[in-house]
């Protein structure tokens, strides 16, 4: 059960990594590469400075998840050990 979860977390992880690779490279960033402004700030600048903290949040989310799973595993193995 938990192994399955660990696997799906790992898969989501890889997907996010690939997404990240795509989202900071051509041609994806070409979408924002124009003269449009938002709050007088070029949209490409906004894209990077909003996407960046978002990606950091994703990393943090994953690490929390891993911490959580490790704790559960420890609990499980402890439970097994005492029984």
């Amino acid at each position, binding site marked *: 059960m938990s192994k399955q979860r660990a696997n799906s977390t790992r898969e989501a*992880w890889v997907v*996010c*990594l690939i997404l*990240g*690779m795509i989202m*900071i*490279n*051509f041609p994806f*960033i*070409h979408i924002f*590469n*124009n*003269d449009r*402004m938002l*709050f*007088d*700030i*070029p949209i*490409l*600048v906004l894209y*990077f*400075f909003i996407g*960046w*903290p978002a*990606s*950091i*949040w994703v*990393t*943090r989310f994953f*690490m929390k998840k*891993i*911490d959580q799973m490790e704790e559960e595993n420890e609990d499980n193995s402890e439970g097994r050990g005492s029984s």
Partner: protein
Amino acid sequence: MISAKIVLIVSLVYFAFLFFVAYYADYRRQQGRSLLANSYIYSLSIAVYCTSWTFYGSVGRAATSGLEFLPVYIGPTLIAFTWWFLLRKIIRISKQQNIVSIADFLSSRYDRSAILGAIVTLFAIFGIMPYIALQLKAIAFTLDLVSTPLDPVLGFHSFAPKLPPYVDTAFIVTLVLGLFGVLFGARHLDSSERHEGLVTAVALESLVKLVAFLAVGIFVTYGMFDGFSDIFQRFFEQFPERRDLFRLGTQQTPYTKWFTLIVLSMMAIMLLPRQFHIMVIENSDEEHIKKAMWRFPAYLFLINLFVIPIAIGGLILNGGDSSQADYFVLTIPLSAGHPWLAMLVFIGGFSASAGMVMVSSVTISTMILNHLIMPIILKMKLEADNYAGILINIKRLGIVGVVFLGYLYFKIIGDSYALVNMGLISFMAATQFAPSFIGGLYWRRANRKAATIGLSLGFFMWFYTLLIPSFVRSGWIDSDILQNGPYGITLLRPLELFGLQGFDIYTHSLFWSLFFNLASYLALSFFLKQSETERIQATKFVDAYGRKVKPTQLKRISKAPTIMEFVELMSKFIGEKPAHQAISNYLGDREIDARGSLADHEIPNLKSYTERTLAGYVGAAPARIILENYLSTRGSKMEDVFDIFGSVTISHAASREQLSVLYEASQIVSRGTDLQKTLDDILGLLAQQFKFDLCVIRFLDEENMTLVVKSQRGMSSEHFGQSERNLNMDTYIGQAFLSNVTSVINDTDFLDKASSAQIIHREGITSFAHAPIIVEGEPVGVLSAFSRVVKGIFTDEFVALFENLAGQVGIAWRNDKQLQELLKVREQEYEMQIAKDIQMGLLPTNIPEMEEIALAGLCVPAHQIGGDYYDFIRRDNSIAYDLIIADVSGHNIASALIMAEARTFIHSQVEGLENPADMVFALNRFFFKNLECSELFITMFYLQYRPLEHKLTYTNAGHNSPLVWRVDEQRLDKLDAEGLIFGIKKDVEFEQKSTQLQAEDLLLLYTDGIIEAENNQGEFFGIERLGKLLQESEAMTPQEIIDKILDQVRIFTGLRHFNDDITLVVMKILR
């Protein structure tokens, strides 16, 4: 502007504070309350990545090239995402292998190659020079910017006019930073020990530079302007033509360059020597990675948040002039009249530079010491009593030397490049490590030659496509080479190599250097083979998470050095105190024998421990050379003693030696001679190959429930090897047998079973094991081995082999048991054959020719012994012929005996009992007594033919009705009479009937084997078919009729053999 004196005082106070923090950290560490247990310090220390290149250069780059400054920080953010897998593995390996630098890492991975270590070191020096130059340039320049020199002409010399003219600001800064490096990084020699003071100081500096940068960012954005939107708005109003700064895919920043910068920075964050040092060597807890994975990117984000506002703010304030953009961070607060903010910025910038220079110089000088100096010292075989003092001083000298190399670079080339471009040259150099490094982590086949050649080619291309153009730009080399290529070969132009045009210098260089690097690395790894030792090293790296591979007891050292000699050797290189410390750590958990020396098998362990300890100070490759040289000068040699052990222990798959022992054992078993000899031979093999003092095989004696010695090899002892063992959990052998699990004691000093311990200690056993001999899941005995000499003989792998041997013994035992059973069966069969012969002998074999009748009979038993019986008795003067057919249930000896009894009875009583009914009556009474207790029963048909009267009299005891074919009348009759089978009731009235027969008439007697013969459709042969056959055979002789019936029955069933006994008797009346 601030007075130079104040700048100096503030700087000195800051230095003092840093030192205080560093010493405090070291103090805490000695107290055992390490500051590095705090994961914030780890995350912050990684930010040594942000040097003055970030601090000043980002703004400069943003002002001139726009978004191009970003990928250098986005790349690390992306790769940080993989750290939990990638970085953790690297850390795990480095801790296991006592690795001290990236050069050490690569050298260790590839067969501890000294050459590879030297190559990596050389290129790390070349690669780091521009980067250090960049830091010196930044500090020197900002120092001059922020302070008002007392004399504008003399500048720095106004403080100390007696200094020679080449001593400028940068020179002083170089000296100071060199001193910093020595004080923080080279107080001890042991590089595998963490430099807590250094790391804490670096973490503090990271905090200071972030605070300083954020302060100036907020000041510019919100103090001088009205927030982000305001700055952008005013910028676009003033410089509408500079919109391209915030776009990509432009002339200035093409997408390829963007991509190149991301790749470069992704590699650099992991592979720059200083990053490797901080992230891997100085890591104190793997768990810290988890936090650093997002905190470090968050740091990068924060420090870049105000880069664009400061850059365009500076442009607005300077009327669009970007020539001094590298120092906007400092000049804006200065010109705005905030000298204290400028001072803070200066301290921040100094922190950024100093942190990088300190860590880099310590790292590089460690590499120089371990991979350049040590091999030379060792080669020259310098005689010295104590290398430790020399080595630490070489290291200190190395640190200062590295910083001064940067100074030289700065003086010669520095001015021609903006900060960021100098940084990228270093990044590109670090990227060349990537193929060998990452390949080495995951690809087992990657080998030493491939890494050496790949790296060399990569660095050559780096030098050619990146460094040469920078030399040209600084005027060192004639620019002709860029335009026309070397010697006029245009194909070799450094910026358009092999005609590759249209890319910026970094993309071009990245492509060609990685192309040659990666291609040769992959191809050579694929085609060249690894040596044995290389493969072992590779496995340690690739399988870092797997089972810990311990090549213990591989070898024995002849003329082994004593412990003290090892200590002396270590003291030479690392100093006396650390050497004694190391040896007491080692001995702490080990047994030393009465003579104060280690057991033979411990010496190789001590040797490898010494090697690892030395590796912590001087690197893996030199440590190996030191030990090898030392041993060879002593005339000591590593000998293969426990060679089988060694290979078994090392290899994951079964090694050849292991297989050969098992193979030999299986040969012994399959020879299948006497069990005793097989067991003796297996024990002989075990004792001989592994030098056991005693090997015993015991089997379970099921009657007494004890384990009885079946075979024994080695020392003989009445109480030990030969005695029986009771089955209980109080002994190790009993435990092994009862729990069906091998019990292993590698050191008999630690025994928990008192009854066993007594015997074992008396016999001087140091280690032993009992493996249950298991046959079909059940234990049948125990294989035991004892050693008096060697502790720790039973490694996991060896226990596996041992269990396998026990399994082989089990097979031998089972084979033997099966053989015995087979013999028993054969014996029974032989007896049955005799019984059958006797039985057949009881049947009338040759029937005499008679005038009145012709007769033939046949009995075919389905099994060895049949239960059918027929007989023929000629009474005196041929007055009457008695015909008997009987069927005893069962086909065993008992039925045969009953049959024999019946025959004896009939033959003995035939004179007295004239007619069938009397005979059958008597038989019934006789059998009732005998059959009562057995489960058998008998059917019988008794006939008597009197030829003179042509009269057939008959009585039936439950048997099948005989058939009569009356030729004249062409009629088939079934003969039957009332009667019960024998053995049911004591007194039974048997009906006696009679009938007349004529010449040519046929009488057929049979047992149910005929009519119940079954074909594959489940049909019985039946009476009808039998009668019809008889009818058709009226012209035949009785023997012919029998043969014909048998043939037909066989055809009917399709079988050659019958399932039941078949008996046929045919009588033909002749006249």
